[in-house]
């Protein structure tokens, strides 16, 4: 069984430590939600695991099926089975979604093999049907002029097509109204087939009403301060982050 192991991870942006000793193990098929107030290191954790060049890992390790990711370039990590769904996905003018995903799949085959175009489009249309995405969508340029909801749908379609072992979903709910949120959550739920492990980063409990996590972790000032099941998220919702801060001071 695949697993993603985060071991005593410390991450800095410039000289500033942001993530301080986070350890977490995600197994295939599990959904782990990481919650916490803004600026507490949740997104930094996701981006550092994916290999963003602005983030320095100062201590610890991240292992995918026992293999350290840290020496790998971001694209090698992706090809090893990691996927980062962005909070703010980049726009790529002039490159259609269909061509972009095709290039990403081709990159996994290397130069010797050519991706089978017929098979590719068959799979693409299957996934689009599954996620209830209109056929016209994939001829548009990647994220170019997209609404918040369209950007997130584009991320979910890529996730479906690239078949990673683990997906890091960074604030997938941000900027979405309730209808868009439901559509995106439905998409993620359809991809929960027992194969995919998910690290779901969110500020709000509301996303967890739609994507029900197996585990909930609360981050505060760079640490995971609480872990539990989905009831922890509800407790947090009821009492607010202020409650947590108070508890931590008294602890």
């Amino acid at each position, binding site marked *: 069984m695949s697993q993603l192991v985060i071991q005593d991870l410390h991450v800095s942006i410039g000289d500033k430590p942001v993530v301080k000793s986070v350890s977490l193990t995600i197994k295939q098929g599990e959904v782990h939600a990481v919650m916490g107030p803004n600026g507490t290191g949740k997104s930094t954790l996701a981006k550092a695991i*994916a*290999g*963003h*060049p*602005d983030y320095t890992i100062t201590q610890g390790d991240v292992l995918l099926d026992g293999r350290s990711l840290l020496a790998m*370039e*971001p*694209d090698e*990590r*992706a*090809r090893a089975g990691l*996927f*980062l769904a*962005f909070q703010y*996905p*980049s*726009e*790529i*003018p*002039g*490159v259609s979604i269909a061509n*972009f*995903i095709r*290039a*990403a*799949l081709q*990159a*996994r085959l290397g130069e010797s093999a050519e991706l089978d175009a017929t098979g590719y489009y068959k799979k693409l249309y299957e996934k689009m049907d599954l996620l209830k995405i209109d056929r016209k969508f994939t001829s548009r*340029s990647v994220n170019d002029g997209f609404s918040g909801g369209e950007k997130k749908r584009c991320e979910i379609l*890529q996730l479906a097509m*690239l078949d990673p072992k683990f997906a890091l979903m960074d604030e997938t709910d941000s900027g979405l109204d309730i209808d868009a949120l439901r559509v995106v959550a439905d998409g993620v739920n359809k991809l929960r087939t027992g194969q995919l492990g998910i690290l779901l980063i969110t500020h709000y409990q509301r996303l967890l009403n739609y994507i029900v996590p197996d585990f909930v972790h609360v981050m505060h000032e760079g640490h995971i301060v609480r872990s539990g099941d989905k009831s922890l998220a509800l407790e947090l919702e009821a009492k607010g982050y202020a409650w947590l801060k108070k508890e931590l001071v008294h602890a």
Partner: protein
Amino acid sequence: MADTDILETQTAAASSVAGIDQSVGDFKYDVKYDFDAGTGLSERTIRYISDVKKEAPWIREFRLNALKTFLAKPLPTHWATRDLENLNFDKIRYYLSQGTKPKRTWDEVPADIKKTFERLGIPEQERKFLAGVEAQFDSEAAYSNIKEVVSKQGVIFVNSSEALRTHPEIFRKWFGKVIPTGDNKFSALNSAVFSGGSFIYVPPGVKVAHPLQAYFRINAENFGQFERTLIIVDEGSELTYMEGCTAPKFSTSTLHSAVVELVALKGAKIQYITVQNWAPNVYNLVTKRGLAHEEAEIKWIDCNIGSRLTMKYPGVVLKGRKSRGEVLSIALANDGQHQDTGAKMVHAADETTSSIVAKSISVGQGRSTYRGLVHIPRRLKGCKNNTECDALLINTNSRTDTYPAITVRGQQHAVQHEASVSKVSEEMIFYMQSRGLTEAQAMSLAVNGFVNDLVRQFPMEYSVELKRLIDLEMESSVG
């Protein structure tokens, strides 16, 4: 025949070890030249070239006058880059050939030269989709052929010397008229030492279904290639012409200085497509201009990849009422390269329309410059111009400049100018890398996306070729 062992340059060998084919054109075969004008430029050089070509006295006079003009004109460094001063005209070889008569079949082409063109895929392309091909190797065409169906329509497709010898009644009238010798220092140089190039005549009412293609190959070191092209498309006719160019990478500089004149008579359409992939030591200083008569249309598609310095501003003189001119230009300046490109549109009749879309990409230390000239005089009515220039910067050191000169007088014209500069950000590259694309693949995709709306207007074969060249350039820029 000479030794046919392949001489890979060091860089090519090194990069193939790294698994990256940095430049498809970077190879050379050793060739023995029967005709060599020696090094440097003087009246003797001109007389030698003219003798080898057995030219008529008027052409010799034309050349000698052009030499005087060339020597009298200063380098245009008051507006252009001072890198031009690094050109040493005394160290260049101005004429090298194995003979002046091109072969009509590939089997007759000498083995060493044939191998070069086979490696560049020319005979294969010819079979697939071309109406005719001329393959120039240094100073002369080694191969020239036009498909029988096209020649039966009365289309003439030969090199400059042959055209002026066998069809002076057609070509002399326009030769040097669209671009006079004294237009600029390099048009004067070309007029003095021109050799090779394509002279084409399409008779009235003939639509040439497939493109004619010329391929220009520089093989020799310290060499200057000066092809001369003149295309006359008669009333109501249509032609697409494509040219490709490559050279091996030498440590010394190579000069490519062509003159291309187009004449579209009443209602004619000419589409002229260039995809060049010069080695990074080539000075590419080319003058290209078309003359559009009434209701005629001239379209330049100009893709500049490679070279040390390219200075090229394809233009259209809109001489006849309702004529149209269009330039689509793509320039990619990699490290150590300067693409100084643009377009000129001179409106000289009522209701003329011109359009310029220029896209430049600067990578690393690469520098791109756009220069545009649009001229609409006061006496005209109902002229339109649309200019759009977009620059894409990759890495922070790259530089881009835009010098649009738009002169519009009178009240009854419509002119639009748009410019934009965008950047491939680190964030965008990271986004694409996080999907599994390497850094080079990500940059290549960003560049292809940037030029995509232009490339879609190209013939398929050329858009595929351009994409491949962009991929190779991006591979080499990441290293």
